[in-house]
């Protein structure tokens, strides 16, 4: 009889095998390590190409001057300011999901908050560029900052444009801080499983995180306090942007409803942009287990709610224009709907007021392609909303002798398209280097659910 093979000395000395890793880690880190497909490269290439085209156009604009835009007297705020306001609006969903829903203990946010926070940062970075593009001589943009100078002059703190500078820079900083704090524990998850250069990078970014009780306690308190700070901030930023318009006397702009109506519009468009990017992401990386119908349902409800607030804002503007009996106001609003820019107004009304009504039905709120189509329509509608407010307001002021017509030029549209390219490029790169779904937060729910026998 043959004796059984003797266990080698090396086998007895080998440490026991590592316990199996968490499926959540595998799935969510898997997005970063997923094979780079031709489709991904094609999208990234297209995004980069549009950024290069926009960059080249910008350089040309700096060389030639703002005359290559469609500016015409009296319209000196055009596509760049429209696009700036549009991207600041997009930036609102991230902080709303991260901060406000955190304070309300809405745990469903856990699967989408990281991606939305990242989109906030990217949207603010995209928006900020438009201030430089809009002012033309962008190398003098620093004039807006209160810095000590030889002339002894300071900036005008009574101007809404100065408030805007403080609001946007604060928002960008807080958004980055929020994103980074949330990422620290997830960087540690990535560090423990990465190799090579990625390991070095994640080790540096994780700051030695080990999930000790002291670290978690400080972390949860930081997130809580940041949420407390970011909640009024998110409401203030678009309010301040709206005051850029509302503080002036331009017909159609000088309205007290602007702040809440802008904030609602920002959340409306922000949620739509989150859906526009998350629906394909979920499909491509098989994240149906993490981003569920429940998330879609809730986001669609937010879109429906904020869509109605925006609709109320539009109705209120028309009512106040009529009720005020101020002729330039009435004319301005009449021309919005039936004047030279009627198409933009009706596109805005269709996309923002009518299209989201399909979300009264649950089947529409949980069907990805319907959500994707409506979210895209809302994005289009929200860009047109800013177009309608800015252009019709400026083009039809008090004196009919100085009325003008503005049409965006090819240069402005190229830079506008480049902004989408820039935003998409950052998002596409981010999903390959950052855990785009908050691993530790998803795990908290999963472990509690398991502890309660799946009934949490």
């Amino acid at each position, binding site marked *: 009889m043959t004796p059984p093979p003797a266990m080698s000395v090396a086998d007895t000395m080998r440490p026991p095998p*590592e*316990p199996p*890793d*968490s499926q959540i*880690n595998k799935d969510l880190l898997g997005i970063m390590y997923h094979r780079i497909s031709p489709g991904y490269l094609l999208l990234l290439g297209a995004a980069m190409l549009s950024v290069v085209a926009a960059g080249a156009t910008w350089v040309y604009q700096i060389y030639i001057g703002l005359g290559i835009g469609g500016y015409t007297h009296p319209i000196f705020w055009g596509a760049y300011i429209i696009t700036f306001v549009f991207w600041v609006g997009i930036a609102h969903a991230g902080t709303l999901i991260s901060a406000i829903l955190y304070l309300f203990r809405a745990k469903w946010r856990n699967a989408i908050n990281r991606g939305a926070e990242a989109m906030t940062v990217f949207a603010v970075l995209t928006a900020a560029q438009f201030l430089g593009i809009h002012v033309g001589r962008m190398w003098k943009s620093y004039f807006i900052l*209160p810095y000590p100078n030889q002339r*002894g002059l*300071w900036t*005008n*703190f*009574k101007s809404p444009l*100065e*408030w805007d500078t*403080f609001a946007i820079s*604060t928002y960008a*900083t*807080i958004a980055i*801080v*929020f994103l*980074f*704090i949330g990422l*620290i*524990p997830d960087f*540690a*998850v990535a560090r*423990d*499983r990465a190799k090579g250069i990625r390991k070095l990078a994640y*080790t*540096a970014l994780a*700051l*030695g*995180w*080990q*999930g*000790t*009780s*002291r*670290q*978690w*306690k*400080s*972390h*949860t*308190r*930081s997130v809580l*306090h940041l949420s407390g*700070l*970011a909640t009024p*901030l998110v409401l*203030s930023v678009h309010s*301040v942007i709206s005051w850029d318009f509302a503080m002036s006397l331009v017909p159609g702009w000088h309205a007290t409803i602007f702040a809440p109506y802008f904030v609602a519009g920002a959340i409306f468009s922000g949620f739509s942009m989150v859906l526009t990017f998350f629906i394909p992401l979920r499909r491509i990386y098989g994240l149906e287990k993490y981003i569920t119908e429940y998330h879609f349902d809730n986001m669609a409800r937010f879109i429906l709610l904020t869509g109605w607030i925006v609709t109320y804002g539009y109705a209120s503007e028309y009512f106040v224009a009529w009720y005020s009996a101020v002729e330039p106001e009435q004319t301005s609003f009449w021309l919005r709907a039936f004047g030279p820019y009627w198409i933009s107004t009706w596109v805005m009304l269709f996309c923002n007021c009518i299209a989201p009504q399909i979300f009264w039905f649950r089947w529409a709120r949980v069907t990805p392609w319907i959500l994707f189509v409506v979210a895209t329509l809302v994005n289009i509608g929200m860009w047109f909303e800013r177009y309608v407010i800015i252009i019709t307001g400026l083009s039809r002021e008090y004196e009919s002798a100085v009325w003008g017509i503005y049409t965006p030029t090819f240069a402005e549209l190229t830079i506008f398209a480049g902004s989408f390219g820039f935003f998409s490029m950052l998002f596409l790169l981010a999903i390959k280097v950052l855990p785009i779904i908050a691993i*530790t*937060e998803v*795990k*908290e729910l*999963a*472990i*509690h659910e*398991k*502890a309660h026998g799946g009934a949490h």
Partner: protein
Amino acid sequence: MPSIRGVYDFPGPVAEAATKLKDRGFNDLEIYAPSAFPELDDVIDDKPSGVRRWTLIGGLLGVVCGYSMTIWMSFDWPTMIGGKPFASIPPYTVIGFELTILFGGIATLLGLLVVGGLPYGKFGEVDNAYSPRFSAEEIGLVVSCSERDVAEVDALLRATAAKEVDLVEA
């Protein structure tokens, strides 16, 4: 001094074990958790986190800076704008508010680093008791005790549903 590590699946039993250990006088405890669990928040240290002081001081500093900067600059080169006072408090409230949030937020990040002890240790080094298991889905409870208490701690950890108990180098 030996350290004994218990590995758990759920936070509830960890909280129970840690409380029992503290009741018996074992105060040198550490927990490694893959996520933030409310059950474990105050188990090791029930004092409120010091991060709140950082946020408060940052916020107060911000509001003071916001108002003082705008008011001082308005009087440094007085310019009448729109018939408003040189230093006009309502519009300066926007700046005061934004700087409150900005300074408060940055101070909160600093508070997290200081109070949470980050960056922790030397680059790339982790505690001996730490394992990548604790960034998966398991929770580790580590107790430092004298040699004669090892059996008691071991028994207590096993009695509170620890699925593994082992000795680790301190």
